[in-house]
């Protein structure tokens, strides 16, 4: 029986439907290329670069970078000092990775980069070209990981829910590397994530149950 708890918000969409809609809405190309300083409209990135060289020689020109996020190649133009977290949220509309401490100390912004848990607030987006990036939305649309999300809902491993995407991503990386973790291994893998509401004990319960459900699913 599909669990009612996986329905989020008032839209009566399931988590995976909502994530799929968010991923579908990610722009593959920048909608418009505007100079961030004088708002001048440019047709191509080359034109913008020329415009910077001519009009704003003392400013830092945006860079053109193609990011591979959730299986979709997205051509983007942004300033080189922006973190991956910022670009995911404000250029691609992916709000799953959350900004809490913005110093790499809380784990709320965890994404998966080349199979490794990575703090998106602590890496420059300009350095992520050519890397395979997966966010919590990309996990939610894969049916294999539905038991994990269901278990998080069932065990109520959240209160305000702000840190939960980071925990979920860290848990997914753990299960990728080690499909049958012990409670101690779970606690170790999640030790980089902080929940101020204090839901830590529920996470190991939820993940241990998800492991059982996923094992049953793969047998049948």
């Amino acid at each position: 029986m599909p669990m009612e708890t996986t329905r989020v918000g008032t839209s009566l969409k399931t988590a995976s439907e909502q994530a799929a809609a968010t991923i579908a809405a990610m722009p593959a190309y920048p909608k418009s290329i505007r100079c961030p300083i004088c708002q001048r409209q440019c047709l191509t990135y080359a034109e913008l670069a020329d415009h910077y060289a001519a009009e704003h020689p003392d400013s830092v020109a945006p860079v053109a970078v193609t990011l591979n996020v959730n299986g979709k190649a997205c051509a983007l133009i942004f300033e080189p000092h922006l973190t991956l977290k910022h670009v995911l949220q404000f250029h691609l509309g992916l709000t799953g990775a959350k900004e809490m401490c913005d110093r790499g100390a809380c784990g709320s912004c965890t994404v998966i980069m080349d199979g490794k848990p990575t703090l998106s607030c602590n890496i420059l987006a300009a350095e992520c070209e050519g890397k395979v990036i997966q966010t919590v939305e990309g996990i939610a649309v894969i049916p294999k990981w539905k038991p994990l999300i269901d278990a998080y809902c069932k065990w109520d491993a959240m209160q305000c829910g702000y840190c939960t995407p980071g925990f979920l991503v860290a848990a997914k990386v753990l299960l990728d590397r080690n499909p049958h973790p012990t409670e101690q291994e779970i606690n170790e893998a999640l030790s980089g994530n902080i929940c101020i509401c204090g839901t830590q004990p529920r996470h190991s319960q939820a993940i241990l149950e998800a492991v059982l459900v996923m094992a049953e699913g793969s047998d049948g």
Partner: protein
Amino acid sequence: MRAFNHINAATLDGASDALKRGGAVALAGGGDLLGALKDDIFPTYPKTVVNLKSIPELEYITAEGDTLKIGALTTLADIARSSVVTENADILALAAGRASSPSLRETTTIGGNLCQLPRCWYFRKLNNRFDCARKGGDRCFAVTGDNRYHSVFGGAVFETAPGVKRTCVAVNQGDLAPVLTVLGAKLKTTERVIDAGDFFGVGVLTATVLNCGEILTEIQIPINGARKSRYKRFAFRKSIDFPVINLAISVDGENNYRICLGGVAPVPYIAAQAETLLAGRAITEELAEKAGLAAAEGAKPYEANSYKVQLIKTLVKRELLAF
């Protein structure tokens, strides 16, 4: 963060040249620098960030003959997981696996860990609020201020400008610094090879003796089958926290001990008196206690950090008895 130019360095020479041009900082894993840029702690905001990760062939772990070689861009997680490191220098794998948090270890590098700036809260205060000696200012605010995490072996005297001597009491809090010191590692840079014990220094906006534009490239650790070693970190939190004190001890086949403490002095502190006391002797409970006292000999704690002296005595004794 405010805007800066971003350069992907293709070669070490290119990176050195870019760094020598001034107003430039080197970026590896970003664990230290990005936080510093977000907090805006530098007296002058850097114009250029030079990305070192784009330089190929600086990420490797190999055991060649009697030397374990680790590229400076190797991440802490790779070091912690590496069987080569575990076999030849187990405390390095242990210390790398305890630093920061699992997800930060995947991006932060050994080179960055060794070159990180101090975590003194006056130095790190948002928006360069305290113009302290370590940034070229006039005074060290921690001497009379809140110094609970600062040095117990006095401050480091250094020149902020030619002829102007100032003191800084911030500690080197890195996890790997004491480990590499007791292992007798050699650190290869673009210009020279430096002993790990001489690598750390105190200067304006630096925690190493590296010159402007000099880049750490390789860590070379001598392999010694008879060596035994231990690493202990004392921190208030198990994860995502810097050690208040950390301790590395190694002993060779002839009972020659090397003891190095982090978090107690501006550079990793080699407990020479304890080493002399222990040389060639077998550990007993009484000797371990004396070694602990010897390690803390000469400590001059400030108002709020005398607890560190007790920590030194206890940790040294416990770890010696645990061999």
